[in-house]
């Protein structure tokens, strides 16, 4: 159950990186948006006493707002430079939370972000007696909503526009695409989804520490779509499954599984450089489906 919940956070995080990757940019800022969403939503429920749904949405909005803000300077940088600039953003966010102190006392407990000691007392689920199943269902509600939204986007013109920007910016601009709008929108959408993921995660974890939101998390965020494939929303999901099943499925190997982890990433990139589910595979699957349908018609 809790594994499924974890999948949910990871899929959202992977999707948030995916939408930016569509425009041809690699952003390491997703971990920063995730942290912002987590701290904001946790503050909303634990300190301001908000109900959970507005708190989660606020987390998403804050993530989206920062995505929007980071989107503008990020226009000036691209490629590998953007990777580093966004990594810097993530680290700056982490440093802010390393120093941020904003706590209240409830009885004998300290609640709120207490700088290096982390954010304690995010007990909304516990106080309201939510079961693990309810938490899972609540998380997946958001995951499915975002998945549906992204799936629609991929099929609509918006998805093609983002991909076109990713393929060739100059050509995209000269067929009428507003590059600034497309890139900033992708960044804001990515920030929003990462913020939601963080907000949900904060309430699941009940305790936040800035250490979790560093370069490693950012790397995972981009690794999900890159290893899973950027051809469709199934890519990031495949990536999450790949990593999660590795981490949890290889447990019988004990310590050795972490060794295998790196080796498997390298092997995957050698064997399937465009990800597990690449454009070619999607097309083959689609052709297969078409074939079936045509056969069904023929059978009528």
């Amino acid at each position, binding site marked *: 159950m809790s594994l499924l919940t974890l999948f949910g956070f990871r899929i959202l995080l992977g999707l948030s990186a995916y939408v930016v990757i569509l425009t041809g940019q690699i952003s390491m800022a997703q971990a920063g948006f995730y942290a912002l969403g987590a701290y904001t939503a946790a503050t909303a429920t634990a300190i301001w006493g908000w109900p959970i749904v507005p708190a989660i949405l606020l987390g998403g909005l804050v993530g989206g707002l920062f995505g929007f803000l980071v989107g503008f300077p990020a226009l000036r940088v691209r490629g590998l430079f953007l990777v580093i600039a966004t990594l810097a953003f993530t680290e700056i966010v982490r440093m802010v939370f390393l120093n941020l102190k904003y706590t209240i006392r409830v009885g004998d407990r300290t609640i709120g972000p207490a700088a290096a000691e982390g954010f304690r007392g995010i007990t909304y689920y516990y106080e309201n007696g939510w079961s693990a199943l309810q938490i899972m269902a609540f998380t997946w509600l958001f995951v499915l909503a975002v998945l549906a939204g992204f799936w629609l986007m991929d099929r609509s013109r918006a998805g*093609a526009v983002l991909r076109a920007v990713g393929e060739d910016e100059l050509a995209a601009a000269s067929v*009428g695409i507003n590059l600034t709008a497309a890139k900033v929108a992708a960044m804001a959408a990515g920030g929003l989804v990462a913020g939601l993921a963080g907000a949900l995660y904060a309430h699941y974890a009940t305790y936040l520490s800035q250490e979790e939101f560093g370069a490693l998390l950012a790397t995972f965020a981009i690794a999900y779509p890159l290893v899973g494939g950027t051809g469709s929303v199934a890519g990031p999901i495949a990536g999450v499954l790949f990593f999660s099943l590795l981490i949890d499925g290889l447990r019988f190997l004990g310590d050795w599984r972490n060794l295998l982890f790196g080796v498997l990433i390298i092997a995957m990139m050698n064997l399937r450089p465009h990800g597990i589910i690449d*454009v070619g595979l999607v097309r083959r699957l689609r052709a297969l489906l078409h074939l079936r349908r045509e056969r069904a018609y023929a059978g009528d």
Partner: protein
Amino acid sequence: MLAIEGLSKRFGGVQAVQRVDLQVRQNEILGLIGPNGSGKSTIVNLVTGVYAPTEGRVRLRARDITGWAPHRVLAAGIGRTFQSIRLFGGLTVWQNLWVARQAQAGAGRLRGWLAVDRAGMKRIEATLEFCRLLDRRDELARNLAFGEQRRLELARTLTADPEVVLLDEPAAGMNVAEIEELRDRILTLKQRGKTIVLIEHHMELVMEVAERVAVLNFGEKIAEGPPARVQDDERVREAYLGKRRD
């Protein structure tokens, strides 16, 4: 229609285009020729907003569009193709045009992004047919043959239905049969009311279709006029054949 007035562009120490004046009349085919490096493509890039000019203005009808971003120039009515083919290789032929279509159909409004656009689909289909690509519609652009890629470039530009089309060496790398097909297509476009600027190395094609020809050398316009007269111009011959020593 399209007016270029005293246009100049300097890259570092290189004067790529120097005070070029050019008038393109409505519904004409203007040939723009000149040796390699004479500034032809730079002019296309200046008009379409890829570069900002150092000096000079670009006007479309009465509107000053100097320095506009590429997507706004297209929206104003000027489309272009690229000398080196620049397709969205990972998208299908059909998607390449679909992307181009968005510029017209209510971009920026949510409805425009999400709604099914029947008129647009019809238009894309017609454009694909015009460029003889209908049977390749679901192929990835990067898997097309060279000639097909050139046709897709043109189709993508035409999808947005610009009044003025700048064709940057559309015949480069094509064989004789393909060039003939291209010639017919350009003439059809003129019949349909388009204004066309044809930048080309292939002289026969330019001489056949263009009503007027402008010649560039070292970033300057050295001649302008009907094809036959330009061909006999002394300066043009020099530019192409080198200075006579005698």
